[in-house]
């Protein structure tokens, strides 16, 4: 129970940071998608049970604060979770560099899924002109965020060991 509350608190903090704290301080498209990073981490480590459901729910929650299409992030987060979960046992998931690389690739994949779903089903003509140029910077920013976060956690772990 404590663990669930802890994970919920962390995910809520990430959402608050992504929606309220960071946007006034960072320019588009250099705003990290912290929830996507969380989904990637959960999928690679298998930290929670029913991770697919959690990923879908996180996507829906993000949809409540992003765009106007409920289910867009829900679908893409679930798809990403299922793909990563399927290949996680073949990867050396303890490696920090792998996590950084996967986060970058996942950001691009997430953007492409959004693009496909928006182009086919929505009336937002020309969304590709905004989305495609933003993909690479967002991927790099997400990768940078995950490396900073991991670096901080490693330092903290080393201090705790001392």
């Amino acid at each position: 129970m404590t663990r669930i509350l802890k994970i919920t608190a962390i995910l809520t903090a990430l959402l608050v940071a992504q929606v309220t704290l960071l946007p006034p301080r960072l320019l588009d498209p250099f705003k990290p998608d912290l929830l996507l990073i969380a989904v990637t981490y959960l999928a690679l480590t298998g930290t929670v049970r029913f991770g697919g459901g959690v990923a879908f729910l996180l996507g829906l929650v993000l949809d409540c604060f992003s765009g106007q299409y409920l289910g867009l992030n829900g679908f893409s987060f679930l798809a990403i979770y299922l793909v990563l979960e399927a290949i996680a046992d073949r990867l050396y998931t303890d490696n920090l560099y792998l996590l950084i690389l996967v986060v970058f690739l996942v950001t691009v994949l997430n953007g492409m899924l959004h693009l496909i779903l928006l182009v086919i089903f929505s009336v937002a003509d020309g969304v590709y002109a905004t989305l495609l140029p933003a993909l690479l910077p967002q991927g790099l920013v997400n990768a940078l965020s995950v490396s900073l976060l991991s670096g901080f956690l490693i330092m903290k772990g080393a201090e705790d060991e001392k």
Partner: protein
Amino acid sequence: MRDFLRKYRLQIIAGVLLLAAFVFYSLNLTNRGHANAFERGVQTVFSPIARVVAKVSGGLSGVWNDYINLVDVRRENKELRESVKKLNTRLLESTEAELANERLKKLLEMKTSLKLPAIAASVIGEDGAPWFKTILIDRGRADGLREGMAVVASEGVVGQIVKVAGNSSRVLLISDNASAVAVVVQRSRARGVVKGKGGGRCALEFAVHGEDIKVGDMVIASGIGGLFPKGLPVGEVTMVKKGEYGIFQTIDVRPAVNITRLEEVLVLVSQNDD
């Protein structure tokens, strides 16, 4: 059959889950202009947290800025004394101008036939993805807000409300790709539609080749559709391209409102509850 199901169990479950998520997304597409119970619930739970965090974050920024300001305070003090003398002179002039402005404003108000009730709101969040342009404001259904209401700032049009929860709402900005506003060019009265292009940019579409539109022209709401009051500034023309072929011109418009620095907005409360 049973062996098949057993063998491909994981793939089938994954497929079913993805299909369900996809169906959920497609079903919600028709209702994207309104917040459903789930969205309202999440926004209601989240908005008090966002409000507190935004306030605390603003306070901390203020404290930090005050500290930085203290570093050069002595030198600044001398400079300020000098500028106070100059400003005192200007103050007298500006007081006169302000009084004149007040009088003119009252005159203008008398001339204004249409009066719209408005509610002030603070921006407490921005869109989570860089390719969508929405903001979260701290007013909702409890304050009388409804989907489709116009949102403006002192400089002009901001966007319209797309999702309303109890105490918060989401505003689709005019720079979002899904946004469109019927406009006229103030100088030549040429008509068109300003559509969002993302990244704080807009474009004036459906302006036919022969229309007289120049860089620097102000673009204002035409009032067609009844969402935005006629005459409200939408933006300024920054680029006009007339190709040799084609019916329409390619025109870039810079929004009148600096969306990246938006802190307070006005919601025009229309009586239409549709």
